């Protein structure tokens, strides 16, 4: 609660928070099918209509309502983004934390594997995963998650190493606290701040990655919509029906803007050093 208040009293937090909240609402509406029209229904006599009173954002090649598809697409993109980031942050945190704590061989092993994943061109990694498993929502989630896991691992391991050297951890060790207790209560709890910031930023990237994958035809499968797929489909219609490009592009930009602003605000709020400052 106090977190929310802090976000909304922070200048960029207010804007970012509002954007994210609106998107989440729109995404939920889209996911539960509360849209002006059925996003899948093809009003084929109304193909490629420019935005008007009936179709607020126009219709696409099939006469589907762009506004409804956009809502659904936001839902889809957010679903993929959220799931992927949750998965990546979870695995990354687990690996980073244990690597920092146990050090030595385990650290070496984890970090080398992460190096392998990092050194492997990200888009190719995603591409291979999707090609092997076949495209679809959950494959995209897995692919994006695998791409971002090493980043989270690194983000966690660094601070975890420094927290490990903090005095309260030493103190805990002098009492003989169990490893699990120290890992969860001391390290993890104090990693919440960097993780939160990273999560918002990763959400923004995940949206972009999802868009890129769908753009290559590897993400969301038609007739479902996602922001990237809508952009990809509009590519060759850019001149005949610019609204097909403009609305999804704006939607994606504003959402990423929102996550970035929110991330900045969280960074300020959670990090005392930059308090009262915005980036």
């Amino acid at each position, binding site marked *: 609660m106090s977190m929310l208040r802090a976000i909304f009293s922070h200048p960029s937090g207010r804007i970012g928070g509002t954007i994210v909240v609106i998107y989440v609402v729109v995404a939920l509406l889209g996911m539960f099918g509360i849209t002006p029209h059925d996003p899948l229904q093809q009003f084929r006599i109304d193909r490629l209509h420019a935005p008007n009173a009936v179709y607020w954002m126009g219709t696409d090649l099939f006469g589907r309502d762009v506004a409804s598809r956009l809502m659904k697409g936001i839902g889809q993109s957010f679903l993929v983004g959220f799931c992927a980031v949750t998965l990546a942050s979870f695995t990354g945190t687990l690996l980073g934390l244990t690597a920092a704590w146990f050090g030595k061989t385990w650290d070496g092993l984890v970090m080398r594997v992460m190096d392998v994943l990092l050194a492997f061109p990200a888009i190719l990694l995603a591409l291979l995963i999707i090609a092997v498993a076949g495209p679809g929502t959950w494959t995209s989630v897995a692919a994006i998650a695998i791409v971002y896991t090493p980043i989270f691992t690194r983000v966690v391991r660094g601070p975890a190493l420094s927290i490990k050297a903090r005095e309260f951890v030493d103190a*805990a060790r002098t009492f*003989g606290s169990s490893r699990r207790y120290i890992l969860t209560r001391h390290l993890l709890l104090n990693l919440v701040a960097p993780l939160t910031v990273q999560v918002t930023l990763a959400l923004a990237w995940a949206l972009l990655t999802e868009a890129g994958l769908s753009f290559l035809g590897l993400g969301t499968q038609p007739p479902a919509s996602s922001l990237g797929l809508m952009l990809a489909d509009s590519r060759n219609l850019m001149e005949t029906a610019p609204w097909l490009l403009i609305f999804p592009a704006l939607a994606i930009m504003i959402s990423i803007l929102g996550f970035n602003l929110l991330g900045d605000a969280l960074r300020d709020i959670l990090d005392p050093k930059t308090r009262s400052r915005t980036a």
Partner: protein
Amino acid sequence: MAPLLSVSDLRVGFGRDPRQNEIVKGVTFDLEAGETLAIVGESGSGKSVTALSINRLVDFGGGRIIDGSIRLKRADGNILDLAQAAEPVLEKIRGAEIGMIFQEPMTSLNPVLSIGTQIEESFRLHRGLTGRQATAAAKDALDRVRIPDAARRLKYAPNQLSGGMLQRVMIATALACNPRLLIADEPTTALDVTVQAQIMALLGQLKHETGMAMIFITHDIGLVAGIADKVMVMQAGQAVEQGRLDEILDRPQHPYTRHLLGAVPHFESGRATRSDFHREPSKAKSLALAVEGLTVRFKVSGSLFNRSPGSVHAVENVGFDLMPGETLAIVGESGSGKSTTARAILGLVHPTRGSFSTSSGKAADAANPGVQMVFQNPYASLNPRLRVDSILAEPVIAAGGRINAETLERMKALLMRVGLPENSLERYPHQFSGGQRQRLCIARALMLNPSVMVLDEAVSALDVSVQAKVLELLIDLQREYGLAYLFVSHDMAVVERIAHRIAVLYAGQIVEIGDASSVLSNPQHSYTRRLISAVPSIDRRNQHFELDTRQVPSLVRPPGFEPPEAQWRTFGPDHRARAEA
């Protein structure tokens, strides 16, 4: 004749609405050429803000001068009100007419530029020197602050020098252009006693040589005696008292000044030691803690292109014992291995050699609840994200206990005992002051009824008045529970008040150990003597500090190095010192 600097009714505020957030609330003082004004007061009283306002550096921290004037007599005799001056004029004055040094030498020098570059910069800016000339001038400046081998050191980066050296570099930079006013904002607070003494001596000498005026800010009233002509006491943004040095020290008028003077622990050369415990060698069987031959070495990792040059011999063959109810203080300057010794006993670092035993017979290590530790920094040793009840419960959980009504009772009782309100349990560490947090740490250490407490600089981070109260608490607890303390500190005045015995650590080795009053009143090892003579005291007024430019020896030894066997000499029943070459 107008004074060199005349500040009148200075008001400074911060933030969007500076008037609402006034930090300095009407300060007035005059300063003649060649005079030294000491500003004292506790943390947050506005000393630094006042100082920064004089050369208008507050502007960059978001501060604004709301009211008042700062009249400076310039070299040509003109008088300029700095409070109204424009930035370009101020740039000419800063560094040239007003020099400034800060508290933290480590962070006050630009880490990525060599110290030579940073000193030269002053000469380039204000004297128009370039190239060789500037370098030569910088070398002279380093010579002036008695840095040996100045020519070579010019190329060093700040991280290659010790704190004391860096502070001298800072002074060299500030004095580069012979300013007529030097502002020193707690120049020695971050340094340890021996180095502090060196810096004070240097400032005294330079003041003498150049005849500059100085504003010296400190919260340690003991330091003031040695250097100041005038003293101003600040509290909550106001100057509550000011006058000549002797007037203030001997006849303080304001209650706050009196309180400040009373709280300072005065070092009394062993006359103020405790006498509530006597060691009886016959009872040696019931030792609370015995340490033998403790040696800790850290392998130095190789640099970018080089292999490891060897290891740091942080602690070398240290041995002592501790009886229930007794306090052994370990003193020594920074880097002498005090903390490493303490940490090795708790099992936080693995000793290379050595053995411990405790009264329970078990080795003292991480799983032994009989030995507990209180760390130096109360801010860092409490997990900021845990509530006090979880913090206190941790040792119990670690020892396999549960949180039941009984533990809860014990928590409350201990909180009461260390003087914290009962509702503390539901609060977070950041909702306590520094002294309160240290009490929390002490309560936490007591949760498991330890027999030995290791206190590593447990009161060093606290304000003087708070420090006194915590010390009192520790002594009470010792009496009550029969605790044995291993008290690590560099502050001789504090040590004198709490220790029964003292061990002096130098470069990882004990050089002198014995009964506190004997060691303090009759130090035998030259290093102990040096430590003691460096302690400031308000009794030694305008004293001429000895300037000692010796360096602490490097502890890095090549692989396989073993130090020679020590020779001990005995001076009395419980007092031994290492023979010196």
